[in-house]
């Protein structure tokens, strides 16, 4: 008995593929859709790396323009988003280099530190610790805390945990091995946990 077999891969095609085909065919409005879809993520990543609003604005524009110009170089072996993020990360690092003239900036910066790799703060947190702060206070705490991480840990955490890339995609984007991504992710998570503990401890008495 014969059954209708779907063409392999056809059902799993990522929606970006069709948009990219249209862009390649000269349809700029399809690129408009892609930009709208990913501009917030690209801005966030750029801001996390450069830690500077103006730089993040420039990176966001340059990354989308570069991706548009080089679209014929995109092989389609990876997702468009992963490829775009790689461009955004490189543009962000270039901005940093410009800002810190003469100083090398790489994702390997400061990763030799052992700080925070063994948990020290073992007190439990309040049940919903973020409720003890208003939105602006909480955002400030989260910004300050993540900014204190070494660059090489911060980028891995942002791509993997905040933006939801897989370990493999993060490795590919940053040109790191999978074990290197895993090791940095664990240390990033532990360091952030340690640093947030001072704000989120279960406290006695009236809070806030």
């Amino acid at each position: 008995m014969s059954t209708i077999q779907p063409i392999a891969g056809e059902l799993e095609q990522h929606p970006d593929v069709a948009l990219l085909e249209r862009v390649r065919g000269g349809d700029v409005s399809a690129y408009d859709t892609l930009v709208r879809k990913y501009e917030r993520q690209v801005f966030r990543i750029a801001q996390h790396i450069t830690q500077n609003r103006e730089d993040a604005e420039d990176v966001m524009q340059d990354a989308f323009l570069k991706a548009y110009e080089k679209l014929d170089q995109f092989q389609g072996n990876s997702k468009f988003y992963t490829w775009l993020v790689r461009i955004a990360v490189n543009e962000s690092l270039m901005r940093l280099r410009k800002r810190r003239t003469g100083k090398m900036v790489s994702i390997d910066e400061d990763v030799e530190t052992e700080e925070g790799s063994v948990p020290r703060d073992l007190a439990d947190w309040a049940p919903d610790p973020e409720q003890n702060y208003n939105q602006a206070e909480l955002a400030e705490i989260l910004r300050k805390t993540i900014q204190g991480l070494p660059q090489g840990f911060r980028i891995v955490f942002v791509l993997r945990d905040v933006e939801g890339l897989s370990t493999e995609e993060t490795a590919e984007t940053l040109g790191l091995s999978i074990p290197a991504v895993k090791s940095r992710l664990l240390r990033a998570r532990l360091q952030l946990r340690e640093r947030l503990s001072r704000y989120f401890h279960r406290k006695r008495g009236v809070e806030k």
Partner: protein
Amino acid sequence: MKCSEFLARLDDLIDDSVTTEMRAELETHLCRCPNCEVVFNTTRKTIEIYRSHEIYELPQSLQERLHAAIMARCKKGC
């Protein structure tokens, strides 16, 4: 299982990339070790908090301005 062994597998447990047997071993350790339980719960919470809070907001007006600038340059052929 020692705490150091648990810690080495912490990410695998959080990311749910462990075998059933390993999960059972890790969970047994968690039940017996209050310190590792705190580390596990608060690390998971750390990720959750960063995932659910926008710490670098892109205001609508700025987003529209940047979007328009990108598209104008694309239409010009960059």
